[in-house]
């Protein structure tokens, strides 16, 4: 019962904040909405016994990516006139939302065996740093190495695109 | 090796001509290369064994081993004369273009030689894939020849030509993939021996025939021809009319009919009707033209209709007539178009109105033209006669109606050809349009210069002489051409067309092929070990 109450509260926060993100004119408001949504997500991860992921979500997303984004928004210091309010695009939003609901939701709801089966019994330490780390550094060592190159590329790319002189 | 050398020599000539730094050498190199090719190709005739209906001078090397595509060449009665015709005409075209082509001459000759090589390759290929490679390859030099050195509307003409030809060949490619997948081999003789089920025959025949009939061209598919012939430079028109369109007829004889005899018989009446429609349409259109190059283009269309008619009689005289007419048509059309090019070079016009009384100024040119026109009109003793008579008589025996209509078309052809001759070469001389009225004020000239129409130069005469002699030789001694090919035509086309007494069971045939493949594979494995 507790899980259900928590789930519904978190889901409401998540979706509400998500809608906030895509409807606000001021990007700062959107960004704050996104932070809140990420926090709700982290809590949901915790509900799903993914402790490490929940922590990382807060640290990296809310703590890293969002700070970067807000920093850039502040840096560019946009004039409020530059930020046009949402025009008559409500229709697009509604249709996209309806599309997602109509197509994806029921497909998963009705057809997923996961929907009806009880979840697997968990081993001790499921989702903690040891279990995840063990998996990451054995079966997924190669993509992990390549991930370092992704970050390198991002750094070099940002440098190339944003530095003053070519 | 003879055939490879025959393909290689023009390619070598083309490359040398294109790379040689001096423009002067650009003329001698192509001439040397093409003349050598011709002399070398005579070996084909001297060593050809008329008693053998199969392929001779065979060469086989693997080309794409994984798909068992081979570089395999061979010559039989069907292709012998067409190869010789090609090698015979190319040096003459080179020689005849000396005066006409002044801009980017190196590229022009390179294209010409390249075209020759690909034509020889097409005629000599005995692997279906290789055939297709060469067949499509012809398009590229022809595209450049018309498009770069052609007349004012050359771009439209060359695009039309390429797209028409491509449309046909792409469908043929699909059929070719299908056929070779069915037979599991690209080898000509393997496909030749295979008998396809009837519905396959229908569709594949249509796909193959479309490609070849566009090239010939048969009546409703001829829209590219008048433009391409008119806009191409003289040498290009010669190659088109004398050599390239023959490949359409050759394709019918070589692939379409023997591969799909059942469908060929079923469609033969339709094609005969269309062929005759082409004869009449070409003749009628020719009478309406004021541009004599266009007139000749339509007359060529008309004559090609006759050749198609001869082929689809499916009788030995008709086929022989068709082949002889191909050679004859090649020779006299080459002559006529070269002469037209020479006239154009002197006056800059293809309009009959711009000329008149040219025979007085240039008697040799007029005589050569008359000679060629007589051949074209089918006067006895000249190149056009034998083929025509053979085709018309055998067509009459097969189906009287189209033959009679075709004869009517031929009477018309004499009329428009001589009308053309009369307007251009007889009557009172007319002034060169370049020098009339407005031009005369700014650029006063003497009267002689106004009517100036110089006679043949040495190189032009040399280019025409062999054609004049050949036109007579074909007319006087047609057996020289018909005898060596009789056996091949008989065994490769006519025999195949006879209704098969017992159609082999399809499944059994597949099994036999598979067994054959297995047995082929095993000894090879042993060799590897």
């Amino acid at each position, binding site marked *: 019962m507790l899980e259900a109450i928590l789930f519904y509260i978190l889901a409401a926060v998540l979706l509400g904040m998500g809608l906030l993100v895509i409807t606000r004119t001021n990007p700062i408001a959107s960004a704050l909405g996104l932070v809140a949504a990420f926090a709700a997500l982290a809590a949901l991860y915790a509900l799903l016994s993914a402790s490490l992921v929940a922590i990382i979500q807060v640290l990296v997303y809310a703590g890293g990516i969002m700070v970067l984004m807000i920093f850039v928004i502040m840096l560019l210091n946009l004039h409020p006139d530059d930020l046009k309010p949402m025009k008559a695009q409500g229709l697009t939003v509604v249709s996209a939302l309806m599309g997602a609901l109509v197509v994806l939701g029921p497909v998963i709801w009705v057809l997923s065996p996961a929907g009806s089966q009880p979840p697997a019994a968990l081993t001790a330490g499921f989702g903690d740093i040891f279990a995840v780390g063990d998996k990451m550094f054995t079966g997924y060592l190669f993509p992990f190495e390549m*991930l370092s190159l992704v970050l390198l590329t991002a750094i070099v790319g940002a440098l190339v695109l944003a530095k003053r002189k070519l | 090796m003879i055939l490879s050398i025959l393909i290689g020599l023009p390619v070598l000539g083309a490359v040398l001509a294109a790379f040689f730094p001096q423009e002067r050498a650009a003329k001698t190199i192509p001439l040397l290369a093409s003349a050598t090719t011709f002399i070398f190709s005579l070996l084909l005739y001297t060593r050809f064994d008329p008693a053998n209906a199969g392929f001779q001078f065979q060469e086989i090397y693997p080309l794409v081993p994984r798909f068992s595509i081979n570089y395999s060449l061979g010559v039989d009665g069907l292709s012998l004369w067409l190869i010789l015709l090609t090698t015979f005409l190319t040096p003459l075209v080179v020689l005849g273009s000396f005066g006409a082509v002044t801009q980017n001459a190196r590229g022009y000759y390179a294209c010409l030689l390249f075209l020759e090589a690909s034509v020889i390759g097409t005629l000599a290929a005995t692997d279906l894939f290789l055939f297709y490679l060469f067949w499509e390859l012809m398009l590229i030099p022809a595209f450049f020849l018309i498009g770069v050195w052609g007349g004012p509307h050359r771009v439209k003409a*060359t695009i039309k030509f390429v797209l028409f030809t491509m449309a046909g060949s792409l469908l043929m490619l699909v059929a070719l993939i299908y056929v070779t997948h069915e037979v599991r081999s690209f080898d000509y003789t393997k496909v030749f021996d295979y008998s396809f089920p009837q519905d396959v025959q229908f569709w594949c025949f249509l796909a193959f025939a479309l490609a070849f009939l566009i090239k010939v061209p048969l009546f409703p598919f001829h829209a590219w021809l008048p433009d391409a012939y008119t806009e191409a430079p003289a040498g290009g028109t010669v190659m088109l009319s004398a050599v390239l369109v023959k490949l359409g007829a050759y394709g019918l004889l070589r692939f379409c009919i023997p591969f799909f005899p059942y469908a060929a018989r079923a469609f033969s009446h339709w094609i005969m009707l269309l062929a005759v429609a082409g004869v009449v349409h070409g003749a009628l259109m020719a009478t309406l033209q004021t541009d004599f190059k266009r007139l000749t283009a339509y007359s060529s269309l008309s004559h090609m209709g006759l050749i198609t008619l001869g082929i689809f009689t499916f009788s030995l005289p008709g086929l022989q007539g068709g082949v002889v007419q191909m050679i004859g048509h090649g020779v006299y059309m080459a002559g006529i178009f070269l002469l037209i090019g020479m006239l154009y070079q002197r006056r800059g016009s293809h309009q009959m109105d711009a000329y008149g009384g040219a025979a007085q100024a240039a008697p040799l040119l007029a005589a050569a033209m008359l000679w060629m026109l007589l051949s074209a009109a089918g006067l006895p003793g000249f190149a056009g006669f034998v083929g025509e008579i053979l085709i018309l008589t055998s067509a009459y025996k097969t189906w009287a109606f189209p033959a009679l209509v075709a004869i009517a078309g031929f009477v018309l052809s004499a009329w428009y050809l001589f009308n053309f001759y009369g307007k251009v070469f007889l009557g009172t001389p007319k002034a060169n349009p370049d020098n009339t009225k407005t031009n005369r004020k700014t650029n006063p000239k003497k009267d002689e210069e106004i009517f100036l129409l110089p006679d043949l130069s040495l190189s032009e005469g040399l280019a025409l002489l062999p054609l004049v002699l050949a036109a007579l030789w074909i007319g006087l001694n047609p057996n020289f051409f018909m005898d060596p090919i009789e056996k091949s035509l008989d065994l490769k086309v006519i025999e195949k067309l006879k209704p098969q007494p017992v159609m082999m069971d399809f499944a059994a045939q597949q099994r036999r092929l598979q067994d054959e493949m297995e047995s082929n594979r095993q000894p090879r494995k042993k060799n590897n070990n």
Partner: protein
Amino acid sequence: MDTFPIELTALLPLWIVVGGALALLLLEALLGEEGRKASPVLAGTILVLALGCVFHLLSLKGMPGSLFQGAVVVDLYSLTLEGICLLSALLTCVFSASYLRRERAVTGEYYALILLAVSGMFTLALASDFLTFFVGLELMSLAAYVLAGYLRVQERSTEAALKYFMLGVFASGFLLYGIALLYGASGVLHFPDLRHFLEQGRYSSPLVEAGAALLLVGLGFKVALVPFHGWAPDVYDGAPAPVAALLSTGVKTAAFGAFTRLFAEAFGLPGNWVPAFAVLAVLTMTLGNLGALGQESVKRMLAYSSVAQAGYLMVGLSAASLAPADDLERAVAFYLLAYTLMTAGAFGWIAWAAGKGETGTGFEDYRGLGLKCPWMAFMMALFMFSLAGMTPTAGFFGKYYLFKLALDHGLLGLVLVAVLNSFVSAYYYLRVVVFLYMKPVEGKETAGLPAPLDLRVAFLLCGLGVLAAGFLKFPF
């Protein structure tokens, strides 16, 4: 060394390229101006070295198969894809060298980014599980976004980067969702495990289908299949021409190569994908060609043409669930090789001929160029003939193998549509040749453009490759 070496050496080309990227960055940082000048040479050397390494590995017997606990698979197919990507990158480097000098925008980072993109391509070509696949795709794409916007003082370049980035990440979202659903259904990420799972037929939900469909949408965006192609013409047109060469060849090769492996090896379900792929193929070819028909800029025409070319590949891929994986991979790999040679060549040619700031990319700008620079123009004509699929060029052989594959498995209607399309495409490809050689020069005579030696060598190799590729022995 006759048999295959162990894990690390089997991935040697990758290590060489990664090391090269790091070396270039260090060079730029430590030597500054001097390092900049040397960077194209160094990048070229590294790529040649890696290419040699790939050739050596190809010649060895006994492929190691999967390595790193199934994360990657080294076989003839992946090595061939690596070779094609290296070829594309090498050509891009040569085209870039003179282009960047002309635009005064030489930096070591540019070449480092190319090498990073190549390592992403390698990862993608080698990938044998979804995670590696995704990481490779992102590595490649990130470098590609930046390269597309490299000339950021030009509006068109930055805009291309933006459009590419937005749609690229958008597509990644779908792709990732597809992976999630597949993971949910099967509980595995490795391709062979997924196949095993599907073959057992234990799954009872359309989760797999929904996942695969989302995957298809995501990949469709990445390789620009209609109706997910909207970004491609703008990006290829807006990006600097040498980068467009890389985006339309190397990036596409890796993405398509992995796409093929995914659907040939992971989803080997008979008949399931034929209708979906066939529809995509028909749409992609037809709309790509129709788009190209109306263009007045050669660069933009090439952009649309590369969309259409993806359609021909889809014709072959339609047989994915019918044909043996080997046959399919062979046909696709050969087509990608041919496509890389001719498309990279064509974009490189634009990079050369368009002049400073890429001001001359229209058909009209190339009037009579064939007479001024006959050999360079001839190369472009050769690429056009190859793209149009005329014999004996590589483009013809590529199309032939793909169409043959589809036809052998009974997709006659699809092949007829493809043939019709390739007929239509001949018109606009030949139009380039018409402008080069057959239109009289109007207005003022311009001098022929100078072509540096390295460019000439690159074009010559490209041209020879286009002519000879069909006859060479293919690795597998």
